[in-house]
């Protein structure tokens, strides 16, 4: 096994799938010679040519709309949106079209497409290079939403997503693109969609998170260890479809929950998880479910560190839940 970062793992998954299946093609802004603004598509244009790696004009609606057409015709396109903040010109194509085509055609048509896009803060990118807008998309029946937090999962989940017959939004945590390294199996390697991972087992309290907030929770768990609090960290990995069983099993074990996400708190996907636990596992709860999330403000440039939840903010919530 090689030690890779997330950028390299994504790159390896793309190489692997393009070698396996000539129906896999990539399209996006600056993904050609430049290899993507974060380097995720490095070497692919050189290896597979401009016919399979389309360095497109600057138009997200064009990128996703044409990818849908390609998918309808049997290709497995993997469009890249340069930053999740720039996905909105394609919003209509994603939520009204890609997500609905199977349903509205009675299953005649399908859109096996994976939209890859970096999301979240942590690079001093200001409002428009930092947002976490997964909630809009999780609210879209017909669309799957995947958010890896480790290099191995990035590879395994991306390969599964490409082979999946439904449209998948694949959110890459840009904050830890290069900062986080880990062992990644070589060659064929998949991670099943819809399965959460117990990133750290524990018995006192459950932290539920995804993407770049997973390492923040692991850091909080580590700091709690010194104070004899045994924290469990659940990495959801896939938001839609959601691994309800894994969430409920953890809650049944610990009876205490903090959901951690980077997006604005109100209406965020953490609210859905909280509601689900309240509906199905209230008898296990020893304390209210807490959410640690971004503020209900636009994502700031100068105050980025104040905005993004960190281990201390998570620990503050742990404290409140423990002492309820």
């Amino acid at each position, binding site marked *: 096994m090689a030690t890779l970062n997330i950028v390299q793992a994504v790159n390896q998954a793309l190489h692997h799938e393009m070698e396996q299946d000539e129906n896999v093609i990539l399209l996006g*802004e*600056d993904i*050609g*010679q*430049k*290899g993507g*603004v974060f380097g995720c598509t490095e070497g692919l244009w050189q290896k597979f040519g401009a016919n399979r790696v389309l*360095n*497109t*004009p*600057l*138009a*997200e*609606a*064009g990128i996703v709309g044409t990818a849908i057409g390609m998918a309808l015709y049997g290709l497995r396109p993997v469009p890249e949106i340069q930053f999740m*903040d*720039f996905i*909105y*010109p394609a919003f209509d194509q994603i939520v009204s079209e890609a997500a609905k085509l199977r349903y509205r055609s009675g299953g005649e048509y399908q859109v096996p497409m994976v939209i890859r896009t970096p999301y979240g803060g942590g690079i*001093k*990118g*200001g*409002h*428009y*290079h930092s947002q976490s807008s997964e909630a809009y998309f999780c609210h879209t029946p017909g669309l799957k939403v995947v958010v890896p937090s480790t290099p191995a999962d990035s590879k395994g989940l991306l390969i599964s997503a490409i082979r999946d017959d439904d449209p998948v939004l694949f959110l890459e945590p840009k904050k830890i693109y290069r900062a986080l390294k880990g062992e990644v199996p070589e060659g064929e390697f998949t991670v099943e969609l819809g399965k959460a991972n117990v990133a750290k087992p524990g018995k006192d309290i459950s932290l539920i998170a995804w993407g770049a907030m997973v390492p923040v929770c692991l850091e909080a768990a580590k*700091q*709690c260890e*010194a*104070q004899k*609090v045994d924290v469990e960290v659940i990495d959801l990995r896939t938001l839609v479809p959601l691994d309800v069983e894994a969430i409920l099993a953890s809650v049944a074990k610990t009876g205490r929950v903090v959901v951690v996400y980077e997006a604005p*708190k*109100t209406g965020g996907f953490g609210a859905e998880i909280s509601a689900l636990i309240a509906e199905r596992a209230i008898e296990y709860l020893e304390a209210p479910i807490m959410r640690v999330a971004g*503020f*209900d*403000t*636009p994502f*700031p*440039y*100068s*105050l980025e560190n*104040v*905005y993004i939840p960190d281990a*201390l*903010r998570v*620990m*503050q919530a*742990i*404290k409140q839940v*423990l002492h309820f």
Partner: protein
Amino acid sequence: MQQPIVQYLDANSKMHGDANKVGLAQKDHRTIFTLMLKVRLFEERCMKLQRQGRIGFYIGAYGQEASHIASAYAFRKQDWIFPSYRELGVMLLRGISMQEIVNQIYGNSEDHTQGAQMPCHHSFRKANFVSISSPIATQIPQAVGMAMAAKYKGDKVIAGVYLGDGGTSEGDFHVAMNFAGVYQAPVVFIVENNQWAISCPAHEQTASDGFAIKAKAYGFEGLRVDGNDVLAVYEATKRAVEKARQGKGPTLIENVTYRLFSHSSSDDASRYQNKQEYEQALKCEPLIRYRNYLQEQGIWNEAWEKEISEDFKKEVDVAIKTAEKQPRPDPSTLFTHVYATSNPLLEEQQRLLQEELKERESWEEEGAFPL
């Protein structure tokens, strides 16, 4: 047939037209040249600051000084500008100080937007310079709407909107063009065709013969202009501005220029750019061309430029030093200007943050967060 190009001064500063037709007096030339020089000097400095880690990011106008400054010079100050992000000279022309610019780039507590956005994303209402947005092309329909509103109110105010060659591929560009044509909005579209949208060359951005021609399909005039020629840019824009002000509808101007730096401080153009093409472009750059012309006209001399440069460098030094002394914005500013009036949930979040920040200080003293 190739779209013709408006040009007065060629790359060798040879005059091909009638300078009288341009209508720039000596003092105008001095102003424009000074602004171009200042933008050039300031941006060189900013790239250094970025390399030194003193600012987080910079994106500039290297090579596009004539394109944006000479065009902006054709508008009146009451006209609204909807900028892209390479138009520093427009703000300076409209009286914004270096200190204001530098404070925004540092995102410090003196920045009037309190570090809301990345460097170079300015907003100056007092200069009729509308807040810059990162999402490409979003400003274009807004400019058309503002122009429609001015027309509705009977004001003799028009809109000028800047965008890049890449921006013409977005849907927002096309809907804006269509509305402008249908409603005969008093707007001038200025496409700065710098040949690149990050790594995508202009000839891969569109299959049409450049960008000016796109106006034709929307029912109005498009002009292709040598964007490195101050006289051509000014004269063409002036025509479009007057036309708009007389209620004769929109114009699209394509300023053919060249991006002489990587896309921004985050990019490395050597990965995708042909070196010879770049060197060729460097020979056509606007500042030298204009300087030679002004020298010939007896308007420029070395001592004059030296004096402007030295004074300006001092001004910039002071602005940077002053900006670096300011703290970052107060955390409470995170919550201001989200809505016209706040709401209870937001106020609660603000209060809880304040308590947390106070508590953090004591945790830091104790070395560990007590559970």
